[in-house]
């Protein structure tokens, strides 16, 4: 799975059984799953928040670039999503 190249037209969403949530007590976004928790750094959280099961990866990138007034985020985003996919945090459905 690790070596799969990511299809940027695929629709991306958080995996079944995982939940993205802001934790006030820890002042951070976390990803919750059966009996565990991953603390997310800010960029990971911003990416995952936009993986809503409606957008494809291209539009996740576009939206991030717009919201943060930046360009050239594609490599970082795709890099992170590959790790997330490998860890089973997300699902990518081919369009």
């Amino acid at each position: 799975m690790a070596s799969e190249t990511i299809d940027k037209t695929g629709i991306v969403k958080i995996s079944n059984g995982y939940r993205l949530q802001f934790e006030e007590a820890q002042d951070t976004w976390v990803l919750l799953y059966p009996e565990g928790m991953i603390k997310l750094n800010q960029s990971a959280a911003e990416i995952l928040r936009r993986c809503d099961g409606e957008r494809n990866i291209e539009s996740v990138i576009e939206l991030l670039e717009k919201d943060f007034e930046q360009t050239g985020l594609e490599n970082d985003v795709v890099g992170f999503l590959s790790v997330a996919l490998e860890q089973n945090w997300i699902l990518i459905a081919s369009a």
Partner: protein
Amino acid sequence: MTANPVNQISTAESDTNDRPGPPLWLLAELTYRCPLHCAFCYNPIGFDQVKNEIDTDTWLKVLREARKLGSVQCGFSGGEPMLRDDLEVLVAEARQLGFYTNLLTSGVGLNEKRARGLKDAGLDHIQLSFQDSTRELNDFLSNTKTFGLKQKVAALIKDHDWPMVMNCVIHRLNIDVIDKIIDLALELGAETLELANTQYYSWAMLNRDQLLPSKKQIERAEKITAEYRERYSDRIRILFVVPDYYENRPKRCMNGWGNVFLTITPDGTALPCHTAKMLPELTFPNAKDQSIESIWYDSEAFNHFRGKSWMKEPCRSCPEQDDDLGGCRCQAYMMTGDPYAADPVCSKSPERHHVDQAIARATQLPAPNPQEHKLVFRDPKASGKLSEGRDGAAILLKR
């Protein structure tokens, strides 16, 4: 619930010298009642002394206060949590407060109607425990007829779209059929399988000579597990938890006393670990009369073994003390009689021979025969007899 529910904690550590972080993990042991009689049960030997289960409102208070402090994972466990008919109410409240909600069940009592109720309540995850994969051994080990039922429950879990996590406690009597156990998990569509070697507390400690596998058995099982892992990596995640007796450093028990983990027992007693009640001289606070915040931060019991200041030699001057925090207080107490001693699993402990002797005894015993076992099954009668009426009774093996 069967297994140690905290094998998998992968939460953040907090600095043990500063004000501790919140109890990220809340384990709600709703009842000690259970239709099964597992010989490796984690419940206290004296479980049958605990009759005064706290009511729904007190549990709701516990959930709200813990969540406010920052608890985020909530496990509903027991005993058999399905025996509480307010389970759905508690899950709904927990979920609504923002907890990730886990149900740890043997599956008894989980029918279509209750599954739907739990789904509606927002339950996130069910961990289903299997004692073994073959009917005979399963029935022997849990001492009741439950295997067919677990197959039905596994199907219910799938139908309701919960992640399917199976747990099987591993010991000397089933470790040699570990391939069958994994096959079964695959057949049932489990996405995660935890093969958790028995940890020797409470009932398992009573039965240790018969449950502790030999090193050879463990190595064989690990090898088979690794082969399966490779072959089915796209279908199932398999965790294999080695018994710490075969390590030479103890585990960082509960990730540190009063660090991330809070258990509330059926009568409302708050513990830093579900076996801690056995420790002498400590009085644990009760959620009926105190807030979770004051229990966690201010109570003597939760501060007693927090951090490192309680340590004595060899831990006190040990360069590795931050790695394991001296190991498990209950294990130290059970085997050395001293709750302040280094965990005897540690090769630096002057009392390591207690562990080595246990291994030697277990390895010398003839091949186990389920028909002629001398296991003590967990049941109310045995509980009353063994605990002499004290719910915090400990099994001490200092010889």
